[in-house]
């Protein structure tokens, strides 16, 4: 399979699951009509890409970064600022995405030089500090970025609901659906690119560095350069994901692109899906976004059922859904560090051995 760069999902149940998820996403406008469903599908696509790019540093590079939302936000704000200042059009949109990606890669490079030089854990702390400073800066520079309110802007007319093409399977094909397919195609291409990168010699060296950086250095691989390159690529892809998100939402604000909550969401997605597998990002992001959208309804029902018990009702309050995901997160780091994907692969390997 050339398109997957020879890096197949591996286990049969996993392959089937992935085909279902990707198939549903590919046909989402026709399978699940309605604005909320389409919004959820687009969000899943974008977060799959974002989680996959995070997996490049976390899972393959073994580096924890807390600035991934900052790069995501840079891409989103790149598109937003260009469209806001230069007016609607394809050129400002693409230019904004490119500028955002370049800025993200440059910033990642500088941070990497400062922190990875000494020891990898510095990176976690420094990225956390820089990312929160950036979030504060963006909300303070309200003249440029719209502050806490964010920016609304116009995207090319071909991508808006006002642009109608015709009917297909009883669904009116309009610009919104074209926009969805732009997001879907962009995410697919970039995801396959990431898959290509991790399956290349570069990706293998990265894994070697993750397993034993001292040894990799001794063999002659410049560890710092590889790690810095990985963070730069990951930052650039995250920025492109942000650009797609900005095109989809037609709005950017600190809450949707830069907040620490999103960073934690990405972390949960990658860890629950499976670190260092790429496919984990697909399952993790899908599960997470679905849980975020629909689990809260379920918990609300649970809280009502238990409203007689004082503390249990509060534990099941829909606003406390992050509590349960946090517990799930800790448990999955302990008991299945390779996540859902690793589990499914191990199960398949066991059954293959026993037959």
């Amino acid at each position, binding site marked *: 399979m050339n398109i997957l760069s020879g890096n197949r999902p591996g286990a049969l149940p996993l392959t089937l699951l992935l085909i279902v998820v990707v198939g549903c996403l590919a046909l989402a406008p026709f399978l699940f009509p309605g604005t909320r469903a389409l919004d959820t599908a687009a969000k899943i696509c974008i977060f799959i890409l974002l989680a996959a790019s995070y997996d490049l540093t976390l899972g393959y590079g073994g580096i924890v970064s807390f600035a991934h939302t900052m790069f995501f936000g840079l891409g989103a704000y790149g598109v937003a600022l260009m469209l806001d200042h230069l007016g609607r059009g394809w050129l400002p949109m693409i230019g904004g995405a490119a500028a955002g990606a370049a800025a993200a890669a440059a910033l990642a490079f500088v941070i990497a030089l400062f922190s990875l030089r000494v*020891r990898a854990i510095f990176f976690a702390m420094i990225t956390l*500090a820089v990312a929160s400073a950036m979030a504060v800066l963006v909300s303070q520079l309200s003249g440029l970025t719209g502050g806490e309110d964010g920016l609304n802007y116009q995207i090319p007319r071909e991508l808006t609901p006002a642009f109608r093409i015709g009917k297909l399977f009883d669904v009116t094909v309009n610009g919104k659906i074209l926009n969805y397919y732009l997001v879907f195609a962009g995410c697919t291409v970039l995801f396959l690119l990431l898959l290509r990168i991790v399956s290349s010699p570069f990706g293998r060296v990265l894994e070697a560095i993750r397993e034993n950086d001292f040894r990799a250095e001794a063999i002659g691989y410049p560890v710092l350069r590889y790690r810095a390159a990985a963070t730069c690529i990951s930052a650039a892809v995250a920025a492109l994901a942000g650009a797609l998100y900005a095109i989809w939402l037609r709005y950017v604000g600190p809450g949707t692109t830069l907040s620490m909550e999103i960073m934690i969401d990405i972390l949960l997605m990658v860890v629950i899906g499976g670190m260092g597998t790429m496919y984990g990002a697909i399952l993790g992001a899908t599960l997470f976004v679905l849980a975020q959208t629909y689990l809260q309804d379920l918990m609300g029902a649970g809280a009502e059922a238990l409203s007689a018990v004082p503390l249990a009702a509060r534990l099941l309050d829909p606003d406390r859904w992050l509590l349960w995901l946090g517990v799930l997160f800790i448990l999955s*780091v302990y008991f299945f560090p390779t996540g859902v994907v690793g589990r499914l692969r191990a199960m398949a390997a066991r059954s293959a051995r026993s037959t």
Partner: protein
Amino acid sequence: MSAAPEHAPTFTRAGLGQRLTPWLPALLVPLIILAGFVLIGSVSSWLTLTVAGLAMGMMLFVMASGMTLVFGLMDVINFGHGAFISVGAFVGVTVLLWLAPLAAAGSVPANLAAMGAAILGAMLATGAMGWAFERVVVRPVYGAHLKQILVTMGGLIVAEQLIYVIWGPQEIYILRPEALKGAVTFLGAAIEKYRLVAVGIGLVLFLAMRLVLTRTRIGLLVRAGVENGEMVRALGYRIDRVFIGVFMAGSALAGLGGVMWALYAQLITAHMGNELMVTVFIVVIIGGLGSVEGCFLGALLVALTQNYVAFLAPKLALVSTIALMVVILMWRPQGMMPVAKAK
């Protein structure tokens, strides 16, 4: 037998620069204060800002010292440290609200008793929580930094959510005890009494910590553990006992810092610890991971810079801290006073 050849070795005296080098980090603090004086120009505002900076620095030191010690001794990087700050603040404030009549009374001893009880309650609660955290969350991931960061971050999320479950989602306002309200005037500058108390607590704590670390047997064990844990174990000491003791002490210190911050800001939220962690990380990094003295100086530097810059150019306050960190890391990539083990 011939006599030894006659020669009188002479040592060249170390130059001034060489002798100053180890003291440079300590000299940075007065330098910053001086720079602040020059830039601000007005004695009264400068004095107010300096005291505010020192108070904030002491609080940051109290919060950060536990984290840096835990790192130095156990090589554990605890991203959940912020949870202890929040829990400390919430427990302390709860105790203070129970003792509201004492805190509002006009007599100084009653006020101090209320504050003492709040601090004690917070430190006991966070100490116990530290014990549980070490047992449940950190114990299985010793030696694996990546997992530590992830797991302690997960612990932070859960702890923060549990605060919401227990205390509800609203922020809580708290008034300082009567005796700590108001300000004293000195050289035309109004200085809040509470800030002086915070400076006092921080200084006492720093000196006590240094005393324990350098003059007692436990401190010797801790320092030896930081230097070479395996050797200490080989000599027959149960270093894991020391580990858990230091972890609890570090958590209790974070709790104390939380109470102090709560009374300083007079407002607490469940994510205050998480927000403070950003500054705490910067302090720990520029001080040098694992070093208590570095942490003390780092906290003062960060807080003073932040206060001065907030006065001179309000929008740049947080960015200035990042700039400070970048400059210090360019000068000393390991932080100002790196500890031997920090690889």
